[in-house]
């Protein structure tokens, strides 16, 4: 059984010795335990705001306390839309919704939501980033008037919030930058500066890191047989790999350089390595090229490794994260169908959604069907994305440490992870897409590290 170090692409090793460009504006109250950090485009911002590097979401904007900022872009759902409209009054307000909206339901709306006595309002979960009355616009940073006349900071027209789930700098538990499939809820997103890449490139968050792609979306690769700022890919090599050419007017900057591979033909380099796309890649964000010896995907920043003991397994469309016995790991996704789309995938939210899906509202069956992944008593991590918590398995809520009946479990993004009783052998992913809207609205998705067919979205 392969351990995680052998996974996926080997890119970490490939780029391990490369240059780190310090992020001048980063507050860095937390430093992700990875070799390289992603560089980003500096922009003017109001006093107190900054940028924080994070484990899996790259650099994000933070407030004066270093807390991650989020936005909530309007999203079309099946039966309507919700979220914030650009340059309009923030929709997330002091309203306690009591009924579902029917925006993502085959059934009529108006059903009473669970645990109303403790249900928060939108702004109790997503704290508006309040601006002083005399706040001045700075670049893309503007203010919007809230329902109560106060001002709220906005970036690029979208109001900004912090999350009740984040307790310290570097935590991004409110939302992720990773893309999801169509029928996911109207999710929040970390507000983030643009990655510092030339216009021919982009960066996408995948399960293994911040993946460098070209402006269309195809993966960027590097080759071990190239030298620093020197391409050795000619003739036969060019049948399978296409150098990413730089325009004649392009300028080297930061981690990005330019070499002349032939008279008048310029090629981009990243962290001194010539970059290519793969001729046979047919899907965006592909990792197939990393199967070719010597070739690697490129990340602006790799994710921290999962804790010791986790493994990687080949499955029917790619590779999944698995526990020490090879059983596939699942994450649980949930946002309720109220207009404010509050999260329900965290132990401090109502558990009736998950219990319905994992056990037909039977807690014991739920636990048998989707067991938690038990963490050793002395389990530790060196990052913020992986962690542990004590959980009451019958309620699904957090428990006191060592409480009777409580389980000490692994978490990812401060949420429990699971295995599935229906997976018999390593590589089985039989609970992938288990739940409402294929596991995106209220259900389970396998922890895909790589898929060769579905664009490496979550």
């Amino acid at each position: 059984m392969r351990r995680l170090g052998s996974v996926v692409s080997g890119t970490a090793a490939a780029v391990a010795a490369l240059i780190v460009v310090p992020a001048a504006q980063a507050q860095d109250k937390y430093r992700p335990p990875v070799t390289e950090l992603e560089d980003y485009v500096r922009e003017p911002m109001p006093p107190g705001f900054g940028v924080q590097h994070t484990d899996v979401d790259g650099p994000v904007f933070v407030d004066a306390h270093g807390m991650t900022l989020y936005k909530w872009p309007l999203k079309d759902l099946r039966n309507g839309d919700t979220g914030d409209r650009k340059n309009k009054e923030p929709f997330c307000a002091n309203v306690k919704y009591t009924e579902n909206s029917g925006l993502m339901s085959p059934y009529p709306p108006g059903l009473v939501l669970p645990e109303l006595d403790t249900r928060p309002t939108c702004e109790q979960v997503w704290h508006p980033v309040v601006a002083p009355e005399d706040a001045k616009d700075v670049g893309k940073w503007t203010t919007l008037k809230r329902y109560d006349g106060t001002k709220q900071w906005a970036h690029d027209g979208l109001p900004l919030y912090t999350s009740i789930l984040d307790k310290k700098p570097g935590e991004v538990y409110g939302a992720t930058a990773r893309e999801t499939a169509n029928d996911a809820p109207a999710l929040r997103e970390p507000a983030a500066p643009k990655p510092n890449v030339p216009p021919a490139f982009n960066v996408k968050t995948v399960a293994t890191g911040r993946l460098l792609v070209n402006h269309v979306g195809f993966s960027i690769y590097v080759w071990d047989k190239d030298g620093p700022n020197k391409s050795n890919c000619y003739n036969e090599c060019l049948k399978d790999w296409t150098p990413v050419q730089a325009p004649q007017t392009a300028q080297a900057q930061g981690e990005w350089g330019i070499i002349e591979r032939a008279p008048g033909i310029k090629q981009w380099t990243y962290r001194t390595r010539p970059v290519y796309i793969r001729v046979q890649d047919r899907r965006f964000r592909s990792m197939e090229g990393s199967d070719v010896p010597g070739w690697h995907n490129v990340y602006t920043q790799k994710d921290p490794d999962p804790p010791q003991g986790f493994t990687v397994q080949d499955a029917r469309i790619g590779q999944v994260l698995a526990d020490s016995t090879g059983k596939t790991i699942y994450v649980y996704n949930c946002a309720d169908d109220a207009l404010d789309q509050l999260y329900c995938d965290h132990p401090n939210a109502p558990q009736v959604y998950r219990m319905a899906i994992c056990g037909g509202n039977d807690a014991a069956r739920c636990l048998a069907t989707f067991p938690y992944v038990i963490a050793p008593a002395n389990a530790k991590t060196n990052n913020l994305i992986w962690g542990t918590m004590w959980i009451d398995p019958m309620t699904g809520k957090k428990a006191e440490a060592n409480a009777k009946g409580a389980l000490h479990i692994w978490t990812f993004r401060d949420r429990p992870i699971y295995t599935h009783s229906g997976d018999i052998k390593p590589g089985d992913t039989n609970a992938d897409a288990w739940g409402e809207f294929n596991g995106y609205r209220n259900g389970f998705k396998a922890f895909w590290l790589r898929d060769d067919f579905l664009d490496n979205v979550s």
Partner: protein
Amino acid sequence: MKQSLKTKLIASSALAAICALAIGAGTAGAQSASDVPAVVKDGKIGYVLTHRYWAVYQTPEGKVECPKGYNDGPREQFKALFPEDGTKRTLLETQLMREGRQWFPTTSEEQFTFKDAGGKISYGMDLDGKVKDTDFTSPDGVKGIDNQMYRAMGCISNYRAPEGTIYHFENEYLRRYNTNRFMIELSGVDSLVNDDDVTINSYRGMDQLLTDATGANFIPGGTQRIDGRFGGYVRATWKAKIVDGVLISEPADVTIPASATFDTSAFQVFKGMRFQLKLTAERAEGVMAGYVDVAAFNHHLNTSWSTHHQSYGQLSAPSMYRALRRLADGYPDPKTGEMTAISSALLVKFTQVYIDHPPQATAANGSVVPQTVQTSRQ
């Protein structure tokens, strides 16, 4: 080779029509005098799946098979259970309760009457060599047709042509997503007309289908790479013969990738599956029939099509599950004797393709091990 198969060829009128559409006069021209077209290289010819429809025999407006109309779906059942009478109901006791039933169905009684497809005629094959009261007769008069799946899905709009959501979209996604690329390769082929011993190997391909400019018609002569990295679960090997241009396979347990959209990755398992395919140098078209494990079918249904999508075609998964359990007719549980699988049939079309065998496809990493196919049991 000794011919041991007892399967009866069902050249139904609908199937014959399907075959006739694509075979065409040009196909005959491609056949050489020795019955071995040029596309057969070293005794091998490959085909890639382009159409896969559950075989639902339909009469106009379903008047014969569905005289009481079609089944209700999630929305209709929800309305019957929870009428809009001003009662305030909770999400937990309504929607979440119903969603839980999707994943944990039971065979207990429910208040809804399930409408089985009736009539005497169905596509399919005689899978057990017997003629029973519950069997159908093919459109061409062959008796003993085992297709109890038709009884379960025949009066569900989702599965009916031409506008059933699953009927349409299963094939849309079969073509759109390479994860669903299913190929068979015939080897030991001496003739595409008569050959009493050929071998079938199944693989997952990795590439898009080759089409004409319309995008709707599939062209022979394309190339598909075998997915040697992650496609091992699709691999199987079994035997067949060719009789008067029809491939007749032995039964085999075969897995077909069959995911829908929305980043799903499902597959369908057929037990004791057999082909009857009209072969040409360009196409292979006909019927595949076998048994489908009921629990696996329900799992595939729910992990591929959400309740929302099932609602489009009045498909209630919990109700269908009850019907499948009731109608199951194969693979008895060794302990309880309860039937675990149901006879079924699909109308399929393949287009000739050159199958590229990369080195890694045969030198598999640990997880890619060619399947040994078990002889069918019923």
